[in-house]
């Protein structure tokens, strides 16, 4: 079965990203396909490569990046939500005249249409939020 995953909250502050990660990992272990993980609202902050959590804590962004690499996951950060909150890739930084970007490996920035598409193409959409 094909799953779409929506993550509405940023890393660490709410458990949403953790629950979404555990769900995604379990789905993959059961042989399901993850059509896309879409990060919306503060969820876009999961995609920063500048995070430095304490050494005895999980690294939420790196964990997503590693899972994406292992399973060719499509991790999509909403462009409008990301712009509001300061999550940019090199293109977005250039387009908006910013001198730095902060997106992590394995994440890409795209439009809300990608969320709608996940709703259409995936057999099930699961929402994790606050």
């Amino acid at each position: 079965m094909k799953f779409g995953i929506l993550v509405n909250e940023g890393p660490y502050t709410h458990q949403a990203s953790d629950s979404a990660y555990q769900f995604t990992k379990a789905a993959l272990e059961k042989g399901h396909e993850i059509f896309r993980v879409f990060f919306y609202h503060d969820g876009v902050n999961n995609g920063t490569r500048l995070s430095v959590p304490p050494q005895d804590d999980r690294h939420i962004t790196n964990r997503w990046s590693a899972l994406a690499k292992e399973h060719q996951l499509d991790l999509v950060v909403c462009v409008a939500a990301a712009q509001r909150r300061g999550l940019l890739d090199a293109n977005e930084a250039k387009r908006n005249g910013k001198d730095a970007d902060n997106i992590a490996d394995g994440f890409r920035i795209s439009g809300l249409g990608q969320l709608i598409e996940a709703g259409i193409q995936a057999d099930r959409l699961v929402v994790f939020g606050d």
Partner: protein
Amino acid sequence: MLLHTVNKSPFERHSLQSCLRFAQAGSSILLLEDGIYAAIQGTQFQPLLQEALNDKKVYALLPDLQARGLPSEKIIEGITLVDYGDFVDLVASHSATQAWL
């Protein structure tokens, strides 16, 4: 039928009550994250959950229970403890999932 998820403590927010108001007979409810506090015996929410159990399935995510120090024997009878793999199965076996955020 729908799978409803509730991730909020019923002591803090009204999500559980709203969920229970709209959940149809035959649907399922999964308590996760801080939502699992609703699964404990002896609180004001026990009657609500017991009524729900008459015609719905209620599940609680075991890893979230364990994290919060809630022993399985304090869970309301009839609530099924599940892990993340079971959560995946529940999503797959219901027509859609509605998150009561």
